[in-house]
């Protein structure tokens, strides 16, 4: 365990498209930049790299562009800290992290949070069975580990990312049995793509990948249940009526399924920005709670900037533009000179990219109502085994929001800290109380933000004195 007390001008949290764009932009102005990321290789989820060069994804634009962005950062002199997880942050700024078992503390004048997104999970009957995983998790298995999620696979949920994952199966030469999208195709999708010809090519490529996966495509359908004894063995599929309710009398079971990959979209990772008391707001189309930023990507905390999915789910294009803007403004905050011309151009491009992302999001509204299908015996909080019936009991006893239900039941108190169940929990409580999910609050950040060995936490926090002396 070697302790590291580090200093820089601009600290970037996350090495995905937004983080690497921010790091490079800040470094170009002469600022010292450290970029911290959880994974062993920079790139985030979008630019995730194959385990060895080549393979079915080696030449894809996502992999090639990711490697180029990393190389550019390294050439400029950005310092990457891989396999590093921030578990605490203090204003001013000092961030405390665990680098694969070694304590790290970093002092910087400005911070860019580009920590990306996580799955916006919705519980359903049987979702805790081994073999049921998120669509993003399945994609990571295939792309980063050359592994198949299963032999007979169902991909289900809603949204453009589902199509991207189907394309991942097709590109890897893996078979998909069923592709189950709850929305039906709409003409407005075509008109959105017609207004954005660049994206039309992308969409056709994804559709080709879906076809190559061999999946039976069902739209206007939903996987209503995962079945199995100790692990996934079958799924139950139901068509949806005009109001979006499953028609159970027409549902059927597909046997011999060993992987069910489910995705309904993403929610921003906002633990560090909320810990540092930046303002956040709720926008269902952007993934729920998002970190609020102004046109310079500045949060409400001086010196704290945010970009990419942290500021709202939009994909890689706005992430890169927002990241570059954030990096330049963060460098400006530390006294570096930044050209006004580029800032104006970036802002205009970012606006265009966000308009497209918003149009796409409108086609796939978040189906929060799905929580109403949950039976009393279904598990909502996977970490602490909290069931719907426990939540109902807490509400009858007087719980009025996510925080009080957590105190009553431990829902959201486990190692994931409500990151997986938080969206559903708020939907469930709000619907029972006849209120709105954003009135339920979100899980407040606590020490540590992510589980960390006590010795590492203690050593990292102990580095603060050393950083203050210098």
């Amino acid at each position, binding site marked *: 365990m070697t302790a590291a007390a580090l200093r820089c001008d601009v600290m970037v949290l996350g090495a995905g498209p937004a983080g690497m764009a921010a790091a490079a932009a800040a470094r170009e102005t002469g600022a010292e930049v450290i970029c911290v990321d959880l*994974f062993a290789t920079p790139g985030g989820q979008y630019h995730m790299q194959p385990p060895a060069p080549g393979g079915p994804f080696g030449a894809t634009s996502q992999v090639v562009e990711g490697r180029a962005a990393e190389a550019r950062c390294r050439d400029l002199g950005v310092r990457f800290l891989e396999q590093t997880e921030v578990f605490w942050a203090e204003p001013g700024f000092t961030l405390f992290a665990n680098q694969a078992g070694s304590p790290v503390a970093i002092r910087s004048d400005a911070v860019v949070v580009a920590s990306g997104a996580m799955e916006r999970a919705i519980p359903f009957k049987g979702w805790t069975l081994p073999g*049921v995983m998120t669509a993003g998790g399945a994609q990571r298995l295939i792309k980063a580990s050359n592994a198949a999620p299963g032999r007979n696979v169902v991909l289900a949920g809603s949204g453009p990312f589902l199509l991207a994952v189907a394309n991942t199966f097709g590109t890897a030469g893996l078979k998909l049995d069923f592709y189950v999208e709850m929305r039906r195709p709409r003409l407005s999708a075509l008109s959105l793509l017609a207004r954005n010809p660049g994206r039309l090519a992308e969409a056709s490529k994804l559709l080709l990948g879906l076809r190559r996966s061999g999946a039976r495509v069902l739209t206007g359908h939903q996987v209503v249940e995962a079945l199995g004894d100790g692990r996934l063995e079958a799924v139950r599929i139901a068509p949806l009526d005009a109001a979006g309710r499953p028609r159970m009398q027409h549902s059927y079971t597909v046997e011999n399924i060993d992987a069910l990959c489910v995705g309904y979209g993403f929610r921003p990772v906002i633990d560090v920005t909320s810990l540092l008391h930046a303002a956040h707001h709720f926008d269902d189309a952007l993934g729920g709670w998002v970190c609020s930023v102004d046109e310079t990507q500045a949060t409400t905390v001086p010196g704290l900037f945010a970009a990419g999915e942290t500021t709202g789910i939009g994909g890689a294009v706005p992430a890169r533009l927002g990241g570059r803007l954030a990096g330049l403004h963060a460098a400006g905050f530390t006294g570096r000179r930044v050209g006004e011309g580029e800032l104006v151009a970036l802002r205009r491009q970012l606006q265009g990219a966000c308009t497209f992302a918003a149009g796409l999001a409108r086609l796939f509204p978040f189906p929060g109502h799905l929580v109403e299908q949950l039976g009393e015996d279904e598990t909502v909080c996977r970490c602490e085994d909290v069931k719907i019936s426990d939540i109902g009991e807490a509400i009858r006893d007087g719980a009025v929001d996510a925080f009080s239900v957590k105190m009553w039941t431990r829902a959201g108190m486990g190692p994931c800290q409500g990151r997986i169940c938080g969206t559903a929990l708020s939907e469930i409580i709000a619907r029972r109380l006849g209120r709105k999910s954003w009135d339920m609050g979100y899980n407040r950040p606590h020490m540590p933000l992510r589980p960390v060995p006590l010795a590492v936490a203690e050593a990292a926090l102990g580095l603060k004195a050393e950083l203050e002396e210098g």
Partner: protein
Amino acid sequence: MSAQVTVRINGEAFAAEPGTSLASLIHSARGAFRRSPRLAEPRGLFCGMGVCFECLVTVDGQPARACITPVREGMSVEVQP
């Protein structure tokens, strides 16, 4: 394909491709990673990107999320039965 590494899971040796995640190995080798705390239900890989902690295992005596842990030659892994 590059030389394989050997990882022991509950004492049993498994070969894995370098650069891949420990989670991908456990997922294909046995499916379940742990048991839930109250109901002792088997749990499998879920988020696959370090958020959910369903893939928590013990690696060389330390708790680790298998999905963000690359396989390494000689790694010794304990998984709850």
